[in-house]
């Protein structure tokens, strides 16, 4: 499934990554590296540190200790144009239409060709000519547009935090298929999700987190485990 060259330098190198919120350690010394061209699915209970890890990697949070090397750079800002990020929230303006949103965000990456935004919208199954404002979109449409925003500049590394939350099963399957196609273009994708089953067909590796640590990495789906752990109360 993966198109990665085993000798390629890693896309992400984490060294003893620690993140404190006050006295609470959300990340407790994570060291790991991730190869390019693979789709990683990050699983774990609520409070395991998945979203915090993604935010630190995206450069939205500074780690309390340790370092994160992204695409060979120590500072995320140096490689920001090569990274796409989709947050838990849609990161879209409700008062603008889908195309107006994408046109603005494309401008932030120096892209001024409308066709790029239109292609990104079509790729996630949305009509670029839809004049409706995002505030009137359904949750599924917002998530699709948010994905389009994250991929529109063709990033080499895509970081997605709960992309399927509040999305119906059909839309979620479509989005998973889009991610598979993006990965096939030799892009590296990180997906934080509770819905492991959705990613079984496209994922290259499942990364399991618990209590601020990566506890295991394997290519075997643990959908059943994830479903069980989700039923347990949050830590």
């Amino acid at each position, binding site marked *: 499934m993966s198109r990665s060259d085993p000798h390629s330098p890693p896309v992400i190198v984490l060294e003893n990554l620690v993140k404190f919120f006050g006295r609470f350690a959300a990340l407790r010394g994570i060291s790991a590296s991730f190869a390019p061209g693979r789709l990683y699915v990050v699983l774990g209970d609520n409070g395991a540190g998945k979203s915090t890890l993604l935010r630190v990697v995206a450069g939205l949070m500074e780690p309390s200790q340790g370092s994160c090397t992204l695409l060979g750079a120590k500072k995320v800002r140096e490689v920001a144009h090569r990274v796409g990020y989709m*947050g838990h*929230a849609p990161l879209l303006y409700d008062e603008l239409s889908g195309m107006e949103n994408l046109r603005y965000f494309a401008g932030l990456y120096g892209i001024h060709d409308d066709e790029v935004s239109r292609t990104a919208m079509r790729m996630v199954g949305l009509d670029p000519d839809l004049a409706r404002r995002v505030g009137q979109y359904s949750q599924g449409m917002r998530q699709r547009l948010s994905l389009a*925003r994250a991929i529109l500049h063709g990033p080499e590394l895509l970081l997605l935090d709960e992309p399927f939350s509040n999305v119906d099963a059909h839309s979620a399957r479509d989005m998973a298929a889009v991610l598979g196609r993006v990965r096939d273009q030799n892009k590296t994708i990180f997906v934080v999700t509770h819905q492991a089953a959705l990613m079984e067909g496209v994922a290259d590796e499942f990364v399991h987190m618990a209590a601020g640590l990566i506890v295991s990495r394997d290519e075997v789906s643990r959908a059943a485990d994830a479903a069980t752990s989700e039923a347990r109360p949050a830590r």
Partner: protein
Amino acid sequence: MSTLTLTRATLLKDLRMEWRSKDAINSMLFFALLVVVIFSFAFNPTAEESRHIAGGLIWVAFLFAAVVALNQTWARELRNQVLDAYRVSPAPPNALFLAKAIGNFLFVVVLECLMTPLFVVFYELRSVGPVWQLIVVALLGTWALVVNGTFFAALSIRTRSREIMLPLILFPISIPALLGMVDATTSILTGEASPVFWIKLLAVYDIVFTAICLMLFETVLNAE
């Protein structure tokens, strides 16, 4: 990808959003209108008295009304956490700051244009000094308010009671500018003194604080 291009794109986006929602301009207008009407009933001054107190009244009204708009500035960016999309992009942070400051400047200037005729009518104002100097004071004074206001509004976005925090931080630091605006306006309206010193003070204040805000904005934007 120049700062100027991105400033323009962000400014146009903000103006479009304000045109559609009219959140900032409506609340500012309503607030300023209330101040004008209530003060005119409370004081009921003669034309001569008006010239002496109007400088203070006008700028206090605009300052409080501006705070309403400044609080809205970053609210749009916090909704749906859109600010994160900007932060992960390679776009220069100062383009965002300049666009927000210029947007606020335009909103407050529109407010001033709409409210000035009302001040003239309610307080029977006639300027003894040259009117063009009033325009210079208005532009420099408005920039002084919005540049600091935009910066401190960004500083307080992650605090729980940001509507209260903004005036608490902004008003003390705006005192030199407010003093300049009020004294310059009174000097021009009464014709009793030259406003040149105050105009120079406002110009220096604008330059210094614009430079400081631009230097520090990236740190404020990325503070978690």
